[in-house]
């Protein structure tokens, strides 16, 4: 187990099981390795902590919990970068912005594709969509 000092305190992690972003995230291209942090609370939000930069952590969530018809299918080039084989699953996650007023928005314009089999992920930009970078939760 390795230890990392983050802005949330000390985190212990197994370097073998970290989530890999072979291309980083947009604007964070050098950050390739993230720790998936266990939830302190129930609910759909969780967060990933960068191993390379202790200051950087992203809140993520499965957008289909809230946006029922949201679907992103990886293209072949993306499947290759994720190291996916025929029949491998791919999940879609959103970067969630937690605003100071405690509202949250989902970045539906740039989802994260996650392939559990390879433990790799990548952020993609959806061109030609109406999805917004700051999508508020639908009102119920």
């Amino acid at each position, binding site marked *: 187990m390795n230890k990392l000092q983050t802005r949330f305190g000390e985190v212990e992690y197994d370097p073998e099981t970290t989530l890999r972003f072979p291309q980083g995230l947009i604007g964070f291209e050098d950050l390739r390795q993230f720790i998936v942090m266990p939830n*302190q*609370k129930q609910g759909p939000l969780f967060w990933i902590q960068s191993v390379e930069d202790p200051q950087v952590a992203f809140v993520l969530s499965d957008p289909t919990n809230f946006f029922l018809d949201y679907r992103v299918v990886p293209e072949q080039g993306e499947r*290759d970068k994720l190291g996916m084989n025929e029949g491998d699953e791919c999940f879609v996650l959103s*970067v969630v*912005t937690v605003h*100071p007023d405690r509202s949250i928005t989902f*970045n539906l314009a740039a989802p994260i594709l996650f392939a559990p089999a390879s433990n790799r992920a990548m952020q993609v*930009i959806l*061109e030609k969509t109406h999805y917004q*970078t700051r999508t508020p939760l639908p009102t119920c």
Partner: protein
Amino acid sequence: MLVLTRKAGEGIIIGDNIRVSVVEVRGGGIRIGIDAPVEMKIHRQEVYDRILKENKEATQWELVDLNDVSDLLVTRKGSQ
């Protein structure tokens, strides 16, 4: 930065496998055609910049806020 003047129908070759051509010049806009390998991602600058900005903002959160939001979401789900 390399700056070149091109007319409609003319193009530029970048490296071995990228070709950029000016399709049409009309009004204040220029239509650009790009031939590039499929794995090469091409984005409008403002779209890329917007996502970069949102990613940076998304790192500026506090654990206490996340915990409160999670509690609110659980309540919300329970009320549905």
